[in-house]
């Protein structure tokens, strides 16, 4: 859970930073999208690095879901009879929504790939035009896309808030002295990642990015 999660978090941070390229103009963003396909050239073929990354992410995601499923099944078996009266004592909202939050984020990722990678659901079919796909994809008339995006990103923020700290605890990095610092770091990373991802549709809606 912690190791596969680490890989996914690192990807998310790079993905978020890459997205912010859109604020440098359409040309810079399209150039960045093109550059992603040329990483490692001529050693790697066109899009070669992206495919290596996709396979890596798919393995990490698979392991993450598998670990989550194992933990969920164990939890169900460990408490066959439910409490009649049960209230969460301390558990943060983030900790309590890890499982369903993860499911929401998973469905979003599937949609997100069909939207902006394969362009199945996107009005711009030409994959060379990254900027146009984002601008038209988040156009005001496609408000439901933006709404789903915001929901998924906020859910992801909660997922990261508990996940990053929990991962550090699982890997044995945390201790009494570091606990507050690590929890603060988890919150900061979750917040910045969330804000970075939300900045793009917000900029499109306000006309900051055209």
């Amino acid at each position, binding site marked *: 859970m912690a190791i596969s999660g680490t890989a996914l978090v690192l990807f998310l941070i790079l993905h978020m930073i890459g997205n912010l390229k859109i604020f440098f103009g359409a040309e810079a963003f399209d150039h960045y999208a093109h550059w992603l396909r040329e990483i490692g050239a001529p050693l790697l073929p066109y899009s070669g690095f992206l495919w290596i990354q996709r396979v890596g992410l798919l393995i990490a995601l698979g392991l993450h879901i598998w670990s989550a499923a*194992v933990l969920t099944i164990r939890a169900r078996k*460990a408490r066959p009879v439910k409490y009649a*009266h*049960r*209230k969460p*004592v301390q558990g943060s909202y983030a*900790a309590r929504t890890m499982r369903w939050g993860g499911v929401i984020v998973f469905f979003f990722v599937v949609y997100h790939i069909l939207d902006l990678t394969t362009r199945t659901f996107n009005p711009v079919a030409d994959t060379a035009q990254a900027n146009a796909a984002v601008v038209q994809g988040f156009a005001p008339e496609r408000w439901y896309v933006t709404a789903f995006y915001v929901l998924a990103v906020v859910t992801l923020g909660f997922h990261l808030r508990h996940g990053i700290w929990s991962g550090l605890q699982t890997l*044995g990095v945390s201790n009494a002295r570091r606990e507050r610092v690590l929890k603060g770091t988890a919150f900061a990373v979750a917040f910045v990642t969330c804000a970075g991802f939300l900045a793009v549709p917000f900029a499109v809606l306000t006309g900051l990015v055209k």
Partner: protein
Amino acid sequence: MSLKLRIWRQADARDKGSMVTYQLQNVSPDMSFLEMLDVLNERLTLDGEDPVAFDHDCREGICGMCSLVINGVPHGPEKATTTCQLHMRHFTDGETIDIEPWRAAAFPVVKDLVVDRRAFDKIIQAGGYISAPTGSAPDAHATPVPKADADLAFEAATCIGCGACVAACPNGSGMLFTAAKITHLGLLPQGQPERDTRVIDMINAHDEAGFGGCTNTGECTSVCPKGIPLETIARLNKDYRQALRASS
């Protein structure tokens, strides 16, 4: 005080069980929670009914026998307090109180509110010990222990093994209990010879007993009557990682 109690009644391990409602009058606010149940049981006995079975022993908050999930919280609403040390003054007149046993596959209900906690004994048997020569006691300062380590080890050693951590955990995990023992013994020089085998054996015993996995929600530490901190679980994880590396 007058109270409406909704108590889990279950005749034996095979019985399905259900919540049964009792009205109780003239409860003194100075009574402990268990004394309140004693009053109920005296009345049930006089009425020819089966009294409610619940675990208790020292009633001083140190034996770890009392349990009870009170209004959804193991050991009730007071922080760092066992059920036996909880007093009725923390409840209001006319209140409805739900009383349930620990709920975990590893802690099967024996009767009513009594659960079988031998799964914890299995975890201890797997590694919660040190190898020491018996006979005459060693000199008091033959083995120096740094003060900071002694304090942390003592903090972890205050675990009374009541099982509230398991009862509170949404995953039904016994990780806080296991981690308290790992921390307690792992910080002391006497615990070093078995340090690596201990953590692996105790985790295996924990998993075999049917406890769930830890997802760091922190419910355990918030209900722990001894306030065992969540950092003990990080120590357990670190020991586990180092033990795996050492054994490979």
